[in-house]
């Protein structure tokens, strides 16, 4: 590559603050869905005497509607981002200004109205959570595509994206630490029983949400003051129709997005992790022990991808990690079958779980780098730079895939595996047949492995790598320099 394409643009601190910004956003967006569901179901209208079945159905509908709102907002926000032209850039204003309503709305999700009318309560849940979803899209979606604008140098951009992705994946679980610390502080201040009484009203959730919201503001503001968009936006206005067309007709972008759809079953392991802990390892308390090595593996994997990307192209890296992921899951299956479902399986299972987690680093990082490259390719071909829509398209496919995962997981567990629920009030988990236990193990290992392979298939058709990528990068830099010179001449 030429000197121009090797030029470093970002200050070192910018790479860190980009990650800090994504950490802040993930802290909020990672906290909200699960704890909102808990708050709505258990605390928001406690003691109001509402019909439990109606409330349970309503809460499911709230999240379904929010999913649809989120999918629509992905595209709308992407379109709006691509039509944003300000002195601060096209993405930064969305993040820097959007966090204010986002943090306040997130907080208001945990301030339930004091009503005895169930219809009002349900309407409030729909409105407040849909609002939250819309505002979280308005911040999260632009923050994800900032990576493609932070530097015109693809190599520098890739490093920034992978480090920021690592911090984002850490931030996703940050809320769990917040609620733990909040609980400890409340116990120390109030005494154990009074803490329990406050916890029974969901007050620890409310304080934790405030802390996550404040964290969002703090970390995003650090990012906002220190980071710059360095890839100039193009001036052409894009129509909504043309914009949506980009998502579905640009081959490389479509292939990256399709990885999500083709690999939607990767996540079904989450449905059975509790049952793996109970039936295969012997205690439901081991669920956390199961998730921890995999979480650490994911974090390590995110950093590992950055190293692999220095040696191989994004295409090769993605395929390599998919092959590794499928192999590690298959090994976990074979080892578990070999040892049998008893206590001696615990240690090998947890160790292998760490190695299975490494593959997730790839899916956290590489597609984001590929989309940034696709944005360059689209700009090269059309003269229009459309980060907003490119990332929104990927986000849309992610949301559809996530819906499929949520449907497939329970079907596999409760229908396909032949799982028997306990009918004895005094027995929490009924004994299962060997065939069912084998299928539960397959849902955790072999079935995700198949989807890990399937998600690699579209990438075989992805070609924004090697010489093509270098030529496009070079051509874009030259084009931008020429445009800058023309602008200076015109001003003079």
């Amino acid at each position, binding site marked *: 590559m030429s000197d121009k394409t090797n030029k470093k643009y970002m200050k070192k601190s910018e790479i860190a603050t980009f990650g800090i910004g994504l950490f802040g956003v993930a802290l909020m967006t990672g906290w909200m869905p699960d704890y909102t569901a808990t708050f709505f179901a258990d605390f928001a209208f406690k003691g109001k005497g509402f019909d439990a079945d109606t409330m349970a159905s309503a809460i499911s509908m709230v999240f379904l509607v929010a999913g649809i709102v989120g999918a629509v907002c992905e595209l709308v926000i992407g379109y709006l981002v691509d039509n944003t032209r300000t002195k601060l850039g096209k993405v930064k204003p969305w993040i820097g200004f959007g966090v204010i309503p986002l943090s*306040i709305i997130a907080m208001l999700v945990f*301030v339930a109205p004091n009503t005895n009318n169930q219809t009002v309560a349900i309407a409030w849940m729909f409105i407040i959570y849909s609002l939250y979803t819309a505002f979280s899209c308005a911040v999260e979606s632009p923050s994800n595509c900032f990576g493609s604008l932070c530097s015109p140098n693809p190599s520098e951009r890739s490093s920034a994206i992978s480090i920021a992705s690592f911090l984002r994946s850490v931030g996703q679980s940050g809320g769990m630490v917040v609620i733990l610390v909040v609980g400890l502080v409340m116990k120390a201040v109030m005494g154990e*029983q009074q803490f329990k009484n*406050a916890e029974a009203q969901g*007050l620890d959730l409310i304080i934790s949400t405030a802390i996550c919201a404040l964290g969002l503001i703090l970390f995003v503001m650090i990012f*906002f003051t220190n980071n710059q968009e360095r890839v*100039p936006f193009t001036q052409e206005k894009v129509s909504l129709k043309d914009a949506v067309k980009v998502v579905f007709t640009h081959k490389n972008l479509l292939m990256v997005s399709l990885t999500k759809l083709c690999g939607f079953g990767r996540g079904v392991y989450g449905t059975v992790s509790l049952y793996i802990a109970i039936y295969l390892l012997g205690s439901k308390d081991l669920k956390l022990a199961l998730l921890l090595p995999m979480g650490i593996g994911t974090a390590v994997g995110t950093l590992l991808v950055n190293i692999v990307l220095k040696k191989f192209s994004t295409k090769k890296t993605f395929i390599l990690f998919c092959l590794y992921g499928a192999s590690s899951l298959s090994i976990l299956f074979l080892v578990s079958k070999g040892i049998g479902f008893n206590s001696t399986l615990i240690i090998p299972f947890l160790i292998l779980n760490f190695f299975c987690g490494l593959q997730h680093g790839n899916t956290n990082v590489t597609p984001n780098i590929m989309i940034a490259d696709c944005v360059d390719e689209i700009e090269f071909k059309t003269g229009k730079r459309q980060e907003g829509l490119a990332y929104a398209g990927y986000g849309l496919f992610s949301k559809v895939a996530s819906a499929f995962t949520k449907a497939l997981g329970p079907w596999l567990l409760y229908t396909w595996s032949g799982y028997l*629920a306990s009918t004895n009030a005094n027995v929490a988990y009924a004994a299962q047949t060997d065939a069912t236990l084998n299928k539960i193990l397959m849902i955790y290992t072999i079935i995700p492995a198949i989807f890990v392979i399937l998600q690699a298939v579209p990438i075989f058709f992805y070609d924004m790598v090697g010489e093509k990528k270098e030529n496009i990068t070079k051509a874009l830099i030259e084009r931008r320099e020429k445009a800058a010179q023309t602008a200076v001449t015109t001003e003079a």
Partner: protein
Amino acid sequence: MAKDKKSFNTKLYAIIVFFLVGALLATITVSTYKSRYTGFSPEKTAVAFVQSIVDTGDGYNSYKNTIMSKNYKYGDYIREYYMYPVIYRECDYTPGDDRASLKGFNDESYMSDKTKNDNGVLSGKVIDTMYSYYEELIADLHGWDNYNEFFTRYFDELCKVRKTTFGDDYMTDEIMFTALEANVLTYGKSLTGTEDVFDSNTGLQTSVKSIGAYEKAFGENCKITYEAIDTKDIEDLDSYKTSMNSSALETYKISIDDIKAAKEITVEVNVNGESVAKQKVNVVLIKSTWYVDNTSLDTKLLYSIAD
């Protein structure tokens, strides 16, 4: 973009946003906390106490609003004063003793084969057997006001029933809590009734519809509401404090000097809008939190609402 700072001061904006939004979040949190946490209001504390008893007959958990739970986690108090003396009965355990060197009946050496191999069926049998005794205690003691006798008699009986069922003396605090809390729950259901419940994943029925005592007395879908209708300051605080059960306070690790104020609250219980009971509850202020004074309770009326 290079002219960012000239047109828009991002650092100033960031500082203003951080402090303004921070202040707003703090305000929302504090106001929500104050409105939801019962301990800051004497009326809410009294209502929560009465509601716990009436809604589900749960006099057991109502103690979480009382001075007993000021310095203790309620469960820890029960362990210390009623469970460990049973589990370590051969070691002459007294509350506060170090248990590390004591061998109690929670030691695995006391487990029979039936205990070791139980998959929940025999434990369930113990719970079912204990339920009739639980009902007997509620009737005999007119509720939970005399918690001392309630816990003592219940756990003694539990040891006997367990020995008959399992053939051993094995006993742990977990076994004791499981049986007691299951009985408390069943008693609550006997008042409120239950609905048909189906597992959303498997479709299997997990609960069968039953008519509760409240529904029999006041009709299906009866609605119980609570209101603090009268609040009186206890003006002669010193006399009130000296009249409190000092030995009970000692076990709660509370000094009468900790009590800064006391009020008498009358809570009215309404069913379908009609008054069915008026319960007087004394509450005391310790630091900034109100607690029900459980040394001066008479709640037997609340256990007979459906009669």
